[in-house]
């Protein structure tokens, strides 16, 4: 058991729904996990699984209304849903910061990149404008951009360069937690590698904890220590990288792996998961994955599975593990 001091983020029973006029969208359903300093958690799942909503709720950035958040989010021991709104501005950007998905749209087009980085220092370190600009120049250098470009505007930068600026903003005040929401999805492949490389380097320098949201298992394998697989707003499997990749438990996780082309056997056909994710306004009563699951039995459609430990670090939400000897195909013979 790790020292409690080292726990950066503790999420307990986080539930987020969006109330619309004719339905309630259940974006995140009762998820809990903790994250230690220096560790990277990969949050994996397909579009609409609730990954981004989970991330936004850690910063208390889910718009309320229509959003409705319940549960506890403890950041460095403090429940951010209990702090005053004015204190929130001191936490955001300082204790936790976020890299957003699309670097093309997250930089403010009417301010220079220098100013946008410097703003972090002005807010959190109460620097003078001049001092903040100097620090912003250092940040640019850190992410591999010439400090001469400090006074340029976002439209003068390429996509990969913009994402570097976004990273500089996120890391400016040495946050203890960084949430990266698909930081490479909007970039082309060569740039993706550069940005990932950069993030890994920067992370190694600090004791920062990180949540890496992605649907790319390759990225997870490269950068994460722990993995949580989300499906329809729930965590269905969680464990160390080894646990989830080598001793895959959940049928959905297995489906994700089967959807990746195997470069060693190009003849092999992909086995995509049949069907679609259930409508989040109308989740089935039992396991949300049951309608698409090859292993589903009658009981799966009735009983809601909860995360059950299957080793010290590994947990899975699948009722079939109550049957002795049950294994998904991928883990047979492991």
């Amino acid at each position, binding site marked *: 058991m790790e020292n409690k001091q080292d726990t950066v983020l503790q999420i307990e029973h986080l539930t987020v729904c969006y109330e619309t006029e004719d339905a309630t969208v259940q974006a995140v359903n009762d998820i809990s996990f903790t994250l230690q300093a220096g560790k990277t958690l990969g949050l994996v799942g397909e579009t609409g699984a609730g990954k981004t909503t989970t991330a936004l709720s850690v*910063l208390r*950035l889910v718009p309320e209304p229509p959003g409705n958040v319940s549960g506890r989010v403890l950041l460095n021991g403090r429940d951010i849903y209990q702090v005053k*709104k*004015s204190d929130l*501005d*001191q*936490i*955001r*950007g*300082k204790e936790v*910061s*976020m890299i*957003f998905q*699309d670097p093309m*749209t*997250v*930089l*403010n*087009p*009417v*301010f*220079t990149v220098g100013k946008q980085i410097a*703003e*972090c220092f002005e*807010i*959190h370190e109460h620097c003078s404008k001049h001092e903040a600009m100097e620090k912003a120049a250092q940040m640019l250098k850190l992410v591999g951009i010439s400090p001469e470009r400090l006074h340029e*505007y976002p*439209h*003068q930068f390429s996509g990969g360069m913009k994402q570097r600026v*976004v990273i500089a*903003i*996120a890391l400016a005040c040495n946050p203890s937690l960084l949430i990266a929401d698909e930081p490479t999805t909007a970039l082309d492949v060569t740039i993706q590698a550069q940005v990932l490389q950069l993030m890994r380097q920067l992370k190694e320098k600090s004791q920062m904890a990180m949540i890496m949201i992605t649907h790319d298992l390759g990225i997870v394998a490269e950068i994460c220590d722990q993995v949580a697989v989300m499906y329809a707003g729930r965590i269905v499997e969680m464990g160390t990288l080894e646990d989830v990749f080598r001793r895959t438990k959940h049928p959905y996780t297995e489906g994700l792996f089967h959807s990746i082309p195997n470069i060693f056997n190009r003849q092999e056909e992909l086995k995509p998961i049949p069907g679609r994710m259930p409508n989040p306004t109308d989740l089935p009563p039992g396991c949300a994955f049951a309608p698409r699951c090859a292993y589903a039995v009658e009981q799966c459609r009735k009983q809601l599975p909860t995360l059950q430990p299957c080793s010290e670090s590994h947990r899975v939400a699948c009722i079939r593990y109550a049957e002795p000897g049950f294994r998904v195909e991928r883990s047979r013979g492991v």
Partner: protein
Amino acid sequence: MYRYVVKRLLMLLLVILGVSFLIYAIMDLAPGDPVWQILGEDATQEEYEAMRAELGFDRPLIIRYGDYMWGLLHGDLGYSYKYSMDVMELYLSRLPATLLLALSATIVSTLISLPLGIYAALRQGSWQDNVTAEFSVLGLATPNFWVGLMLIIIFSLHLGWFHSGGFTSWQDVILPAITVGTGHTALTTRTTRSSMIDVIRQDYLMLARAKGVSEKKVIRRHALKNALIPIITATGIQFTGSLGGSVITESVFSWPGVGRLVVDAIKSQDIDTVTGSIIMTAMITSIILLIVDLLYAFVDPRIKAQYNK
């Protein structure tokens, strides 16, 4: 930027050429005869012919126009026989009052519509938003002269706070400015609202919040500057609109502005005054629209980059 300005100024010459010819031709086609207006009904035919020749009306339209443009090139807008003075001098004597009214009306309208529009945008769909919308429609639907008259009745007649008309002291601009300004609030409030609604959904505001920027600053600094372009456009158009003279308001308040000058000149067929004033107004309007376009560059660096191309 420099080249852009020069290009725009050259286009301004074309505008002036077009406007002046149009006005000149229309005034020529208009019913009534300026010569009779000057001489009065009792003049003899000989006197009429003599005056007509003296004023140059016996020459063809195109020659007279050319003559007028030659004068314009030398800064001569013609001579007003009604006021017996140089049109340029006459126009410039009226311009300050009009500029003052246009400027203060714009200030009034901005002070009301900017906060109102932002407020409505932040509470989109709420009852407060609907009230603002109704208020805007009301402002749009209420005739200016009625607002002016009501202001006079309340603040001049009953309360005695202001003069009911004329321009003798600085306070005199307040009531006309409110009259013209409230007429403008409807459009600028709606423009501010819709422009802000576009902007508050943008991702970069989310990033600003994630950085720890306070909500107040997110709106005032990060959002407003991005929403400003349509607001500047609407304000610019209304400002130039009131430069042509808020004729009705100027009449209600006996305001000595350009609008009333032109209307009086049209009534008395004072061709040179009409033509000269309208050319001047067209010129000033074009220049202000150019300034508005240049303002864009200061608000949005992407537009500046385009101008520099």
